[in-house]
């Protein structure tokens, strides 16, 4: 069997670590960070939101999201691919073009609903 030569404890630690690191990776960045990070969402380039410093004014301010977007799917669609609603939208298609992963977008949505 597998464990004959390799000490069991050693294997156990390796395998356990690989599981933990997978879980850790996914929760590395929280939603706000993803929104503000220039290499990630960079939403501040165009939207005023939260306590963000020096926001742009290309898109509307992201406020009272719960009231304005009761349907999470609609909010997600805007972030996933804004060109569906507006073919020349300047807003990057974050999901469609793999700028953010699906997991990152879900986190971002959680955060947006706190605004």
């Amino acid at each position, binding site marked *: 069997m597998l*464990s004959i030569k390799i000490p*069991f404890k050693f294997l156990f630690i390796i*395998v356990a670590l690989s*599981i933990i690191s*997978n*879980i850790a990776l996914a929760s590395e960045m929280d939603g706000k960070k993803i929104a503000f990070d220039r290499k990630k969402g960079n939403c501040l380039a165009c939207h005023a939101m939260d306590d963000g410093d020096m926001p742009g004014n290309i898109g509307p301010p992201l406020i009272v999201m719960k009231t304005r977007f009761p349907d999470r799917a609609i909010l997600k669609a805007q972030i996933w691919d804004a060109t569906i609603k507006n*073919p*020349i939208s300047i807003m990057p298609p974050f999901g469609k*073009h*793999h700028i953010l992963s699906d997991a990152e977008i879900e986190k971002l949505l959680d955060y947006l609903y706190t605004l």
Partner: protein
Amino acid sequence: MKIKSLLLSFLIFLSCLTTTVQAATQSQAKEAILTAHNLWDKTKTAGHEWNTIKPLMAQATQALQENDYITAIALAKKASTQSKLALVQAEREKTNWLNNLPK
């Protein structure tokens, strides 16, 4: 011993689920890179190359040289996905650009 083995195989099974451990050979890695390369070239011809593709290709090639085939394949696939999206963009813009004209 039995329980230990059982526990171990369960853990290995779990780790497979999370990291999708895959047997990868050198030839598979080479093939993935070649496919990615061809798609990348197509985006250049279409005039819609993304600057995110070049570094992925360089990293994939590097991984291949270091015999890290799993990484090489993952990066090549990522590059291929991006190239395909760039080609979709090129195709769409063949007509969509007209919507951008000032009115």
